[in-house]
């Protein structure tokens, strides 16, 4: 049995899609993967039938803001990339940080970045992203 706790996770990212590096200060991540379906029900059928179609993903990475933390600035500012070619690469780890192990990897685009500063609380940043192209799962 290997039930995991959230603090075992991590996020790696590279804006140029070459070498992913850990973003220090990640507090949480989430990824929702959706598969569209096509209705292939024939005339005369009494039950609907479907086949899977296009797969897409979107999610959020939340950070405890630290301007000196490794990897944060490049991640946060990727939302400012104009004419974004979706060349940024992500790898979301459920535990550890060994590429290709206990992770989901994909190329994507950061679509939203929200930074908030509130009296008595830590400054946190939330980034939303969508995947582009294949999503590779290594969760076994």
């Amino acid at each position, binding site marked *: 049995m290997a039930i995991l706790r959230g*603090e075992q*996770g991590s996020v790696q990212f590279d804006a140029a899609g070459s070498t992913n590096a850990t973003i220090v*200060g*990640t507090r949480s991540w989430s990824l929702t993967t959706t598969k569209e379906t096509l209705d292939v029900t024939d005339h005369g059928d009494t039950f609907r039938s479907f086949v899977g179609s296009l797969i897409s993903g979107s999610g959020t990475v939340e950070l405890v803001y630290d301007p000196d933390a490794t990897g944060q600035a490049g991640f946060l500012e990727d939302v400012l990339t104009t004419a974004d070619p979706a060349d940024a690469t992500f790898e979301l780890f459920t535990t550890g*940080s060994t590429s290709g192990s206990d992770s989901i990897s994909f190329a994507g685009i950061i679509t939203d970045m929200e930074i908030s500063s509130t009296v008595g609380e830590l400054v946190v940043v939330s980034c939303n992203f969508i995947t582009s192209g294949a999503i590779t799962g290594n969760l076994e």
Partner: protein
Amino acid sequence: MAATNLNTVRATIEARLATELLKAPPIPVVFHNMAYEPTPGSSWVQCLTTFGANEYLSQGGTTDSQNRIFGLVVFNIFTAPGAGPGANYTIGKRIRDLYNRVNVSGVFFDAPTGPEALASPAPEGYFQTQVRVTFESIEGL
């Protein structure tokens, strides 16, 4: 980064107070686990630093990760009885100003509570007030 040395945090907090209370008028200060026999009717301060519950701040296991360390400093301020609160509150202001929303060496002090007058001073024979300041420090691993 390395794990936070809590003894260093404690020393940072206590040194700040010791330096302040050496200034005129100097006031004796005593910390945890120190014997002290106060002169009756004199003014003195007891400083008690305690670390409390900590929490995960970020992901990352034992490397590239951060914890949030919380603590509390309690200042017991003793002055002569029967002379009104002025002298006591003057010391309280010095202590309060010393930590109020200050960030020292990565230790963030919150807004202080007090000075609050205590109905039953311990030890007896003094007018006692208490200032409490919560603080936190970010531990980077």
